[in-house]
């Protein structure tokens, strides 16, 4: 374990690492996103990008990570790693990190990643930044990012342009503020990264073939694991893929006078546009839709080609999850609703009257092409 406040930063030459989460032998999509983002960071530091993959008989998943940019994948296989447990995964990752000393470690901010990351960081005595939405190392690219994504007058701020800390940016206070966090005194710099935010690179078969596999030493026994997984149950209902959808039609409190009718209208509009339906936190909290539909800071972040907000007032919490959509259309009875501040097109009106007409208009416009 690193001794307090005395980490020799220069000793951490093991490159940029990504925890590649698999469940039941299937790679989580966010692992590819993080490998793609990690490639950029590794290039900025002129170092290696490595995946670390834990499971039972999962080596077959490793090479594909190379196709998205990994130079090497550390494969840790053990029957006790088949299902995720906090104790086993933390133990193995800490063993391997201590041995190879990466300078950066990224973990997908899934329900598992957010259980694992804090435990690993606490054991390694290093910092962890939660649910990041943007990462930089080079100061030039960071300053460019601030120029485009903040209200700061970047030219008036003096930056240390030689700074080589990982700059981890995330929303705070429900998205009202953005904060860039650094971990200057300890390594690895650790971040969990919000799924769906980082762009997946083009797959390159030649790189996948060239990806190195390494099987690091670790020790693990049943005595290390204090919990017992009795069963892992996959939801029987097909979950909505908000993150992968090109079109998302979301509803908010505005459907309250006829919940069933409102959801049905949203579904019809989504069908007309070739998309899926989502909902604001109010809709999920009221039990009108299941939690997998939630868009927003505590739900999913989406950036589809078209986002339609029906009867959603546009609390900052919601905007944080959808404002980077390419085209935003909002329908709301209240002309001062904050959703109109981020909308490309706004209609003031009752969604129950407007949406049926809009469906007809869209069908007609599509047919006319």
């Amino acid at each position, binding site marked *: 374990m690193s001794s*307090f406040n005395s980490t020799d930063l220069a000793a951490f030459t093991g490159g940029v690492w990504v925890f590649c989460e698999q469940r039941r032998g299937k790679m989580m999509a966010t692992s590819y996103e993080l490998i793609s983002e990690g490639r950029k960071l590794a290039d900025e530091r002129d170092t290696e990008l490595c995946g670390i993959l834990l499971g039972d008989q999962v080596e077959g998943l490793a090479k594909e990570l190379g196709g998205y940019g990994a130079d090497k994948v550390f494969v840790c296989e053990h029957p006790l790693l088949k299902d995720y447990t906090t104790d086993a995964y933390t133990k193995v990752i800490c063993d391997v990190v201590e041995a190879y000393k990466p300078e950066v470690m990224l973990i997908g901010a899934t329900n598992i990643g957010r259980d694992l990351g*804090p435990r690993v960081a606490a054991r390694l005595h290093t910092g962890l930044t939660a649910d990041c939405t943007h990462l930089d190392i080079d100061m030039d690219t960071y300053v460019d990012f601030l120029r485009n994504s903040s209200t700061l007058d970047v030219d008036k701020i003096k930056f240390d342009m030689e700074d080589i800390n990982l700059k981890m940016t995330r929303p705070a206070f429900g998205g009202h503020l953005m904060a860039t966090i650094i971990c200057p005194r300890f390594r690895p710099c650790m971040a969990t990264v919000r799924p769906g935010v980082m762009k997946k690179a083009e797959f390159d078969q030649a790189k996948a073939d060239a990806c190195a596999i390494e099987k690091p030493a670790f020790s693990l026994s049943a005595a290390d694991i204090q919990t017992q997984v009795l069963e*892992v149950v996959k939801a029987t209902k097909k979950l909505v893929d908000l993150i992968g959808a090109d079109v998302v039609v979301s509803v908010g409190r505005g459907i309250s006078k006829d919940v069933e009718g409102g959801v049905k209208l949203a579904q019809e509009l989504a069908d007309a546009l070739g998309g899926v339906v989502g909902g604001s936190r109010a809709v999920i909290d009221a039990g009108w839709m299941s939690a997998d539909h939630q868009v927003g800071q505590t739900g999913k972040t989406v950036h589809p080609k078209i986002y339609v907000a029906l009867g959603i007032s546009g609390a900052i919490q919601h905007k944080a999850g959808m404002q980077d959509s390419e085209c935003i259309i909002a329908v709301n009875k209240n002309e001062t609703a904050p959703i109109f*501040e981020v909308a490309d097109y706004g*209609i003031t009106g009752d969604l129950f009257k407007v949406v049926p007409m809009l469906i007809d*208009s869209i069908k007609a*416009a599509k047919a006319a092409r």
Partner: protein
Amino acid sequence: MKIIVCVKQVPDTSGKVAVNEDGTLNRASMATITNPDDLNAVEAALALKDQTGAEVTVLCMGPPPAEGMLREILARGADRAVLISGREFGGSDTYATSQIISAAIKKIGLGDEDVVFCGRQAIDGDTAQVGSQIAEKLNLPQVSYAADLKKEGNTLTVKRMLEDGYMTIQVQTPCLITCIKELNEPRYMSVAGIFDCYSMPYEVFDYETLKDDPLVDPSTIGLKGSPTNIFKSFTPPQKGVGVMLEGSDKDTCDKLAGTLAAKHII
């Protein structure tokens, strides 16, 4: 049996929020509430108390005004409240916070039959890190994202939510559980509880109280002891104002569909 519940007082980020010119949050303009997930943790503790007669201690790190929130939780049915408060603790990140709270839990004392409950995450930072980090510092098994919970003897059986389903996990006490809103429906304060809450045991742990614990070292707590620092905070720019379409009739809808088609958006 003893149950310790960790709670946090947070600004209500679902309401109107004012941001100062320097990009910091104008906290004075915001109402404070008990963090929502923490109320589910409180309810989980009180439900176990109903079942087993356990003593429930509610624990909060924060400034002195958090007392009001702690009294409200006493009025809901907790037996004892502890506020961890001190200048030395200010500016702590999740790592440093977990060091301090862990020291306080050790001070209260955690026996073989005991359970620590936390909310999954607080709505101001949304990190979901402190619960797991307390578990690590106290070497306790953890189960996060608890949506259902049963206790028989010293065994807890927990439904732990995943994005695409759930796991059923068994764990022995002492352990730490982080709770989500699916777990339960928090009860209200009782009238008797409101009467009694100002005469219930209430303590403040300051730096002096905790300083003998090796976890509470000046190099591992507060702003200076935190591994992470804020490099820059800022507000995102407002997106350029879009087009508000006049009217809400069929013409308007046709115009919008036409524009979307012309721009090859549909």
